[in-house]
């Protein structure tokens, strides 16, 4: 069997045909190279790459949708899209960016870096990890299938009643949307259980919670938010499903129902969701800024606890999305105050990052530029967010472009800039090559300029009363002078093209780097945390021996120590630190074995949902696939028996992973 022990004595991983025990209905997959090694992998690093690659694909899809929206609005009486297609376009743009880009991209980074940052060799449940990825991918593809099967969802990403009902949206678009989100919801939930267990249970000796890197901390908060937020939208989606398909009337005013029920359920999920989107990026830049300031993060515990505070208070602010719905003065006052309060921990973080920069030896690499970009742009978006907490003013702004401006500053300027910072920072770790810094700089500046050109004028448009989601504007009502809506709409549309060019430069950078990028040195950034204490890219088993952690920023403290004058001086190079780990390498490491079952199980889900829409027998076939996958899964051990390994090892010093 080709399940090779790590570390392997030979560099060349050739698979000798030792017989594999047949477990379940199929023999274990054994490929270590080629597409099969990706399809059936349970390795958190491969899954992290696949998550990110798939998310990047959806980013391009969602980006093209955005460009179409801006082209439609560039001039009066836009003709690029008709009203129906326009509705589908903005609905799917938001859905794609939120559920199929930012969330899975953050999940990809979490998958890849959490085990490395806490000194583990894999996640707690490697097969569930693989299942999560495939469920997300199949769910995302299923969602987008609706484009080719009668039109996509068209009710806006928060799908308010009555637009979500069969009368106003008779196509199957919303059904695809509901069921696609149910599948990606299963993926998120499984991922949350997996990653929380990993962080709590799999830490290296000495890796106390308050020694964990901030990225891991923020991801831990995010996974808790997912764990509790996803089931709420699951309920909402089920109710909507039953309304659309089985004639229930949960959100139908005519039948005496309360359409606000949907809004409450959606936003009880939806507000934690915005922190699910932003906290991973906060985590990324909390890694990047100290490294490129050559200083430890200012006030580590404050950053940790303000992240956790955001996680808690994030549950008490959902109704600020509903100020215009007539909640009553008490509710409005409570949610106003809570919304003002949640700005505090966020402000704490901004202060901490700024203080980390203060007096540091700043090095403006592309990663650092994006990180500083996040601080500035997110702060602008955060401030316009605070204006929403003032309910009377929010009532005026609701459903205008002012809101669109706000959330693009926090999500594009915040979440996406953070992710890009992570791309540049971790690319050498993942692929062993440095992304081109010069192109990276162009990429950054084009994106900053493009993003401000696109979303900055939307503040003006919104305050002037341009409603969001309107598919055309007319010259007659555009106004005059500085506040001419026509000028700013055209300006924003040009900005979106600049922004697109910026993103395109990133894609070009990937290609150039893959072809002839500079090979990354072992420790290219003089970094601080454990993920850099291994090769680039990391070995399959991550660490030859599990490090014992005695400091926050363990890797830095192994390289640098205080001299007699209290100055930090370098005592070891990264190579020497690596050598120490290699010298104590574990002899027999049995990694979790590849498995067919995660992808089989996940593949059954879209078959079921397809069947629910079109024909029950197809759904039953999907159910059978899921059951088959579940049974195969439950009787197959996560790691193959010791004598399946090559060489067969049953000695006591075998280290089992997963």
């Amino acid at each position, binding site marked *: 069997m080709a399940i090779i022990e790590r570390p392997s004595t030979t560099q060349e991983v050739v698979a000798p045909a030792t017989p594999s025990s047949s477990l379940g209905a199929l023999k274990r997959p054994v490929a270590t190279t080629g597409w099969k090694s990706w399809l059936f992998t349970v390795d958190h690093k491969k899954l992290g790459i696949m998550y990110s690659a798939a998310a990047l694909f959806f980013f391009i899809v969602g980006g093209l949708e955005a460009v179409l929206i801006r082209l439609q609005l560039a001039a009066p009486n836009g003709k690029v899209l008709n009203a129906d297609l326009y509705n589908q376009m903005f609905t799917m743009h938001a859905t794609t960016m939120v559920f199929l880009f930012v969330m899975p991209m953050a999940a990809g980074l979490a998958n890849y870096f959490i085990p490395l940052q806490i000194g583990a060799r894999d996640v707690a449940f490697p097969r569930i990890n693989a299942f999560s990825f495939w469920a997300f991918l199949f769910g995302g593809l299923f969602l987008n299938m609706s484009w080719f099967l009668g039109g996509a969802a068209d009710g806006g990403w928060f799908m308010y009643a009555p637009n979500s009902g069969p009368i106003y949206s008779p196509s199957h678009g919303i059904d695809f949307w509901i069921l696609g989100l149910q599948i990606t919801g299963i993926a998120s939930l499984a991922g949350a259980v997996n990653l929380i267990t990993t962080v*709590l249970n799999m830490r290296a000796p000495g890796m106390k919670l308050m020694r964990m890197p901030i990225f891991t901390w923020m991801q831990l908060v995010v996974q808790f938010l997912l764990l509790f937020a996803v089931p709420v939208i699951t309920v909402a989606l089920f109710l909507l499903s039953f309304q659309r398909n089985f004639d229930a009337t*949960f959100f139908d005013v005519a039948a005496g129902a309360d359409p606000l029920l949907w809004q409450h*359920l959606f936003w009880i999920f939806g507000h934690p969701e915005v922190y699910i989107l932003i906290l991973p990026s906060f985590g990324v830049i909390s890694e990047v800024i100290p490294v490129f300031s050559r200083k430890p993060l200012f006030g580590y515990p404050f950053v940790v606890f303000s992240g956790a505070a955001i996680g808690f208070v994030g549950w008490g602010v959902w109704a600020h999305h509903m100020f215009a719905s007539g909640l009553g003065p008490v509710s409005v006052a409570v949610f106003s105050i809570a919304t003002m309060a949640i700005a505090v921990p966020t402000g704490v973080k901004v202060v901490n990052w700024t203080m980390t920069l203060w007096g540091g030896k700043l090095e403006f690499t592309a990663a650092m530029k994006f990180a500083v970009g996040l601080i500035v742009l997110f702060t602008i978006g955060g401030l316009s967010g605070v204006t929403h907490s003032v309910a009377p003013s929010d009532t005026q702004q609701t459903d205008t472009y002012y809101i669109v401006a706000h959330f693009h500053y926090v999500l594009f300027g915040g979440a996406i800039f953070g992710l890009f910072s992570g791309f540049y920072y971790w690319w050498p770790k993942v692929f062993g090559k440095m992304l081109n810094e010069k192109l990276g700089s162009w990429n950054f500046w084009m994106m900053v300029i493009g993003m401000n050109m696109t979303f900055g004028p939307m503040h003006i448009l919104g305050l002037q009363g341009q409603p969001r989601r309107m598919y055309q504007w007319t010259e007659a009502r555009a106004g005059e002078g500085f506040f001419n809506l026509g000028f700013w709409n055209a300006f924003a549309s040009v900005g979106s093209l600049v922004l697109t060019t910026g993103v395109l430069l990133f894609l070009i950078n990937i290609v150039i780097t893959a072809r002839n990028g500079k090979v990354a040195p072992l420790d290219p950034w003089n970094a601080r945390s454990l993920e850099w204490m291994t090769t680039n890219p990391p070995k399959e088993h991550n660490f030859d021996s599990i490090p014992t952690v005695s400091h926050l920023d363990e890797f830095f403290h192994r390289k640098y120590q205080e001299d007699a004058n209290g100055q930090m001086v370098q005592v070891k190079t990264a190579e020497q630190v690596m050598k120490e780990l290699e010298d104590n390498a574990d002899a027999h490491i049995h990694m979790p074995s590849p498995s067919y079952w995660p992808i089989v199980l996940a593949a059954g889900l879209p078959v079921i949902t397809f069947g629910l829409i079109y024909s029950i027998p197809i759904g039953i076939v999907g159910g059978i696939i899921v059951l088959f996958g579940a049974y195969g899964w439950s009787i197959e051990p996560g790691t193959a028996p010791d004598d399946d390994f090559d060489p067969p090892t049953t000695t006591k010093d075998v280290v089992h992973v997963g």
Partner: protein
Amino acid sequence: MTANTHADEHGALHTSTGLSNNKLGMWLFLGSECLLFGGLISTYMLYRGRVGAGPRPSQVFDIPFTSVSSFVLLMSSLTMVLAVSAAHKGDDRNTYLWITVTALLGATFVGGQVYEFTAFYNEGMGFTTSLFSSSFYVLTGFHGVHVTVGIIMLMSIVGIMKRSKVPGSKAETVEMIGLYWHFVDIVWIIIFTLIYLIPA
């Protein structure tokens, strides 16, 4: 079963928290389930008075009947405990016995629910009759599906154990299903109280 752990002489595994990955994962999942039922229960509480032209709760509910089936479900928690206890002692025979009894009690409860739904339907309370009926069927239906999934897991684990193919610790696997089973029972106590015992 973890990166930085090894089994001690009892086969137990060391993790950072001391709790096994499987158990911690199950607790997290159940935490998430609380919010699922929380959403469904909120929906029911909002709509329970909105009967429209359909029957009111007091007109259809047969409280003695549902009390008996609830009692059966609660007793299944006791037999589940006995199964877990037998599994920890390595007593396979009694493990199978009590798991099977648990599954049968669960099936009795689900059977009772099917009977109840049929009776309600015949009395003119269909799924779409009123907001009350829709939210009632969704809430109790979701609970019924959870019990059914539990029964499938119980029967599967007996089948798999008899072929002695359980990866990892048998006792822990039984215990994990037990955690799920008790959770589903506890949720029923809440649902039963809110739907049947507290008048709308």
